[in-house]
């Protein structure tokens, strides 16, 4: 929404111009916060230490990308493999129903995008179910390494040239609907209303809201009891395997949706991007925010992405204070500082920003009010 300000207020500071890094950060953080919260559901609320998030994101991203490349683009995207073996494409199917362009085109695009996102989640969830049957019986660190291995296996399969006609081998899939497709343009191509930041926010918020509802339900309480003490939970009549599986599948579903959003954000899908480093990054976000706090994860994601993409950028280039050249600053220094900060948080503030508490606006307002009354 903020993006559109510049159209109405002429002398807006640079920060709010549509090209500002602010919006890149907001988009990326919206995507990452969904994945971080989904990881927190598993690691923080169910106590299952899984490192497979990147694998499920990969599944989501590819499902979305394969479904959303329009037939007219397929020849060009899959040129190495002489076209795509998979003929169906959602945008075309909806274009056939609602017609192209105008209001019908918009409805078609929104619906196809929505369905592809849900399917992306479903594919990730389905694979989570399959892998969960053997893997969820493992104990903490074995589970971690097995899920990590599973993600690596997936990455290898998606890069396999033999599957090229579907996955485009090691090359990227592009040409599908991205966030900027949601900007409303007029006939001459000038942008009327920018929705490219609003869309990821909307999808992420809805998904995070669903996760919060789940956490606060009786299932969520079961998850937490498994986290706190498996044996006690089992004694209370909680079916351990069923609830672990449920948490695993749901978490992977949202990781899949997050992966699809990530593909929309970078405007391509490529297996190379979804390495274990990505999982580590998300895990560290969850730790910074506080394991077991949804609002902490969201907050930490925005801080993390803003720092790494925007605020700490200056560390990567030479800086001068007056005539003094600040030593050490060159490419890569940002990430060194960043990882030191992360280590400090892990070692000395293991609770993270929020611990396992949530931001509670009602309580906050109540507190301020109470303080004020005391003063009077």
């Amino acid at each position: 929404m903020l993006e559109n300000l510049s159209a109405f207020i002429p002398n807006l500071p640079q920060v709010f111009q549509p090209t500002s890094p602010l919006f890149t950060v907001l988009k990326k953080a919206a995507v990452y916060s969904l994945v971080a919260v989904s990881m927190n559901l598993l690691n923080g609320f169910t106590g299952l230490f899984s490192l497979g998030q990147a694998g499920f994101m990969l599944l989501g991203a590819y499902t979305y990308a394969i479904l959303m490349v329009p037939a007219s683009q397929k020849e060009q995207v899959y040129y190495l493999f002489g076209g795509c073996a998979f003929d169906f494409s959602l945008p075309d199917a909806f274009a056939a129903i609602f017609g192209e362009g105008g209001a019908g085109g918009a409805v078609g695009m929104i619906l196809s995008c929505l369905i592809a996102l849900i399917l992306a989640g479903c594919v990730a969830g389905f694979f989570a179910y399959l892998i969960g049957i053997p893997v969820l019986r493992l104990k903490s660190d074995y589970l971690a390494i097995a899920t990590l291995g599973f993600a690596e296996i997936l990455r290898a399969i998606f890069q396999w040239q033999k599957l090229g006609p579907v996955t485009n081998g090691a090359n990227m899939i592009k040409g599908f609907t991205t966030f900027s497709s949601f900007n409303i343009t007029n006939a001459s191509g000038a942008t009327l209303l920018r929705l490219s930041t609003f869309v990821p926010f909307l999808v992420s918020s809805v998904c995070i809201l669903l996760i919060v509802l789940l956490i606060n339900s009786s299932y969520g309480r079961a998850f937490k009891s498994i986290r706190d003490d498996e044996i006690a939970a089992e004694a209370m009549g909680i079916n351990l395997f069923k609830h672990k599986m449920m948490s695993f599948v749901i978490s992977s579903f949202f990781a899949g949706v997050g992966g699809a959003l990530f593909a929309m954000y970078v405007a391509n899908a490529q297996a190379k991007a979804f390495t274990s480093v990505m999982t580590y990054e998300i895990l560290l976000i969850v730790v910074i925010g506080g394991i077991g706090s949804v609002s902490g994860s969201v907050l930490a994601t925005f801080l993390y992405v803003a720092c790494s993409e925007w605020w700490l950028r200056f560390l990567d280039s030479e800086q001068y204070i007056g005539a003094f050249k600040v030593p050490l600053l060159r490419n890569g220094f940002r990430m060194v500082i960043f990882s030191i900060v992360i280590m400090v948080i892990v070692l000395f503030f293991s609770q993270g920003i929020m611990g396992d508490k949530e931001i509670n606006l009602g309580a906050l307002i109540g507190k301020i009010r109470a303080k004020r009354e005391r003063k009077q």
Partner: protein
Amino acid sequence: MEYVISVLLSGISVGGQYALIAIGYTLVYGILRLINFAHGDVFMVAGLMGIYFTATMPITVSIPLVLIMTVILGFVIERAAYKPLRSAPRMSVMISAIGVSYLLQNTATYVTGGQPMTYPEIPFLSSTVGVAGTQTKWVVIITPFLVLALVYLLTLLINHTKVGMAMRAVSKDFATSRLMGIRVNSVISVTFIIGSALAAVGSVLYFTNYPAITPTAGAMPGLKAFVAAVFGGIGSIPGAVIGAFLIGICETIIKGLPSSWDVSVFSDAFTFALLIIILIFKPQGLFGEAATDKV
């Protein structure tokens, strides 16, 4: 036939290099119950130090120096990142290990500028030799023997010295061994020192035979070595060595299969598939002891 021999030779050599890393994992896991995710990156840093030291110093000085510096690095990591979390939940220590790994990789990117670095030619090790009609490097021939010798020394150390006895005691029970007058913290430090030293030796052997080092070059060998340790039964040194040789050989066989099958992309995936299969059917590994849960 010659092709088969050359594949097997390089498989055994890669396996030996994995074995040296895997011992570091298995020792640390045996005592701390921690997957030391940073171990692969220590291995990578040892490789980078090899490059920087040999650039300025003669090889006879630089290789021992690499060993010493890697040992110090391993010691410092343990003291700084794992010791403060001794009483914390296992998940926190593992997260700390991931954090260290992240830090080492980013620092390596900063120092090298993200460029792949070529490992220097080490006299003798890099020179070629003909075996059964195939040309290979000396390092390929030497690795398995060196590995076996080191493993033999290590088993002697663990079975017949006081430190080794203390290590075995600590791996059984922290609290009791402390009551018996064992300094648990120094035993853990010794474990990290041995692991890092072996990783340094492994890095010299591994990177002599490899084109370049990137900041992420340690992650994959590290994970594979961990799988080898799980395969052999975590905590068991012979198990880790056998697992590592097996994984090394299988991996080079997969890489060496006809290129028309196009399966070389699965050489890494195979290791993890093996891991998942092992964990499902024989979670204690080949030589591991089955653990029981106490309520």
